[in-house]
């Protein structure tokens, strides 16, 4: 299946990211009886933020499972089932819980095909959700994409839009390798045009979502939303053109797409949801410097979360996460522009978020 050339022309149906995920799971199960779902709370009344709602009713208890709180074993069970012909999709409501299964993911899933010389394969998708806000705190809000991306044999993706979430989920389920599918919780309610029919989007391609000539911003997951706010304001208020690239995939990393943009702009900022040290942002910059140094007109910059765990109290989180303001400031810095102009003040005013900072939308009232 090919990605439709222009989704916006075929049918303007808009659904949320979480509904797009649910639709992808539904269609993948409909297309292939080997697809099964398992996770803590999959068939419960909340249905993993509604992303698995109705699926047990539709496909039965033989294909849609709740699970014991045994992340490590159930990951291994899914790997064993995958080796024997099933296509399990396993779900962690928080990525932090997946750390209990890291032996199975790194020692078995990532290596099984390799260490047995291609004789077996492990077609498994592990959904991991990154939490944020409403006091998620140190153990419910980590962005661990770089950790998984450092392991050969894994594929790691982090779609930003509902359209990509559906297409990449369809591809991930059909892929014969273990795919770590990371969803940012604050993207779940964001709507996009999503075709009703099944379609696939490659797991290794970044996408330009805002064209510009002056600065390249390569962004991961939710940071695309923040970067887009910054890019629009920079263009309309100061005439600065940001080329915003939604990286979509973490491993493999589409470095070529970034180099192509940097050849035009000469400036690179990477916006990531993770801790700065050891982030995939650092890896991306390292590769651009290694392979395209001659095109860089200024040192690349990273906009990431700080190098300490996420605190819980709202008074501390207010300045923990990177914001459009920080992205705007990074763009001005890399452009060598001062911050004492009227334009700068206007710019900051326009991207500054008013009201509560720890919820993804006005309708949101907790607890997640």
């Amino acid at each position: 299946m090919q990605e439709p050339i222009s989704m916006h022309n075929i049918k303007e149906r808009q659904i949320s990211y979480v509904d797009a995920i649910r639709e992808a799971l539904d269609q993948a199960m409909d297309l292939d009886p080997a697809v099964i779902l398992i996770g803590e709370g999959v068939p419960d009344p909340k249905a993993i933020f509604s992303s698995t709602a109705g699926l047990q009713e539709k496909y039965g208890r033989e294909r849609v499972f709740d699970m014991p709180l045994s992340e490590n074993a159930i990951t291994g069970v899914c790997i064993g089932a995958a080796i024997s012909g099933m296509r399990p999709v396993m779900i962690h409501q928080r990525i932090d819980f997946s750390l209990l299964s890291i032996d199975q993911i790194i020692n078995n899933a990532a290596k099984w095909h390799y260490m047995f010389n291609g004789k077996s394969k492990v077609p498994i998708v592990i959904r991991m959700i990154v939490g944020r806000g409403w006091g998620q705190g140190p153990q419910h809000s980590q962005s661990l994409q770089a950790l998984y991306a450092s392991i050969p044999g894994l594929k790691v993706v982090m779609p930003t839009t509902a359209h990509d979430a559906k297409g990449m989920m369809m591809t991930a389920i059909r892929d014969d390798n273990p795919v770590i599918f990371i969803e940012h919780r604050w993207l779940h309610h964001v709507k996009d045009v999503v075709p009703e029919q099944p379609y696939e989007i490659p797991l290794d391609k970044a996408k330009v979502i805002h064209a510009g000539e002056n600065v390249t911003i390569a962004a991961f997951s939710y940071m695309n939303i923040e970067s887009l706010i910054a890019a629009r304001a920079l263009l309309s208020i100061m005439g600065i053109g940001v080329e915003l690239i939604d990286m979509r995939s973490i491993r493999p990393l589409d470095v070529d797409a970034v180099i192509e943009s940097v050849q035009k702009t000469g400036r690179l900022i990477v916006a990531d949801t993770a801790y700065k040290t050891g982030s995939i942002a650092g890896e991306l910059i390292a590769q651009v410097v290694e392979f395209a140094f001659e095109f860089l007109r200024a040192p690349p910059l990273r906009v990431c979360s700080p190098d300490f765990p996420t605190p819980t109290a709202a008074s501390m989180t207010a300045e923990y996460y990177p914001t459009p303001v920080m992205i705007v400031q990074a763009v001005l810095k890399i452009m060598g522009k001062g911050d004492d102009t009227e334009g700068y003040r206007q710019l900051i005013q326009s991207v500054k978020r008013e009201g509560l900072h720890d919820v993804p939308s006005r309708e949101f009232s907790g607890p997640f």
Partner: protein
Amino acid sequence: MIITADSYLLKEMLRIRLVEEALADKYSEQEMRCPMHLCIGQEAIAVGVAAALKITDRAYSNHRAHGHYLAKGGNLKAMIAELYGRATGCCGGRGGSMHMIDLDVGFMGATPIVGGTVPLAVGSAWASKLQKKNEVTVIFFGDGCFEEGVMHESLNFAALHSLPILFICENNDFSVYTRINERQPDRPIYRVAQAHGIKSAYGDGSDVEQVLKMTSNAVDDLRDGFGPWFLEFSVFRWREHCGPDFDHHLNYRRPDEIESGLAKCPIQSYLKILLGRGVLNSDDLTILENEIQAEISTIFQSVLRDEMPTIDDARTYLYA
């Protein structure tokens, strides 16, 4: 000599023993450049369990897997080639002794992270059930593995879904050089499995007929949909944890323990029984040994002529 069911068991045990001894003899030549955990003394469990299985049944194992692999029907040449790091090895040289696989006979894989393959075997049994195939999966592990959390998570899931899986615990009392009483309280392992809601029993791992009988009984249950089963077998590890030698001089086992352990040789004990039954005589034994030795020596010679994999080979199969 006519191969009967009982002489088959003897032959299989003898073959594993002679392969392992050949490996031990040749290990010092430094051509097999990988850690190696020999199963000498533990042959009856591998052979007794495998004899109760069909070729379509599946097995997973651990770091000490040679016996399990061979008993399940694993290709001997592919195993020896793997130990010699050849491209013709069962993993093309990427695994070594601790990574055995032969999918043609349902030997799904052995790996050396203790507990790592336990849930995979449960997943294999789960797949069989979901696919409505009447296949059984066996997982071999040791007493040390029973201390891993994943073991208990796996027992819980297997029991919850009544999966057709047979847990085989080879209890040799030692994790490397650490005795079980330094690691576990004084209670039977199989009774803990029972507490998970799993049918469990304990047997003598040096008695191949007892192992076969207990396994057959369990496998019948599994095929009828009454899984899982857990069997614990006592056994004595003859040689060092890792490597080709005896290690009696390290004194982590008492001389009387070593003496009684060696005296319970599964092969010698069974040979005595079969001689008593008149199933075979000492000439038959000599013929059998010569046949196996000829097979082994042909394979060792041919493997040395096999190609070595290159770094270019190592770059393949990262993704399916």
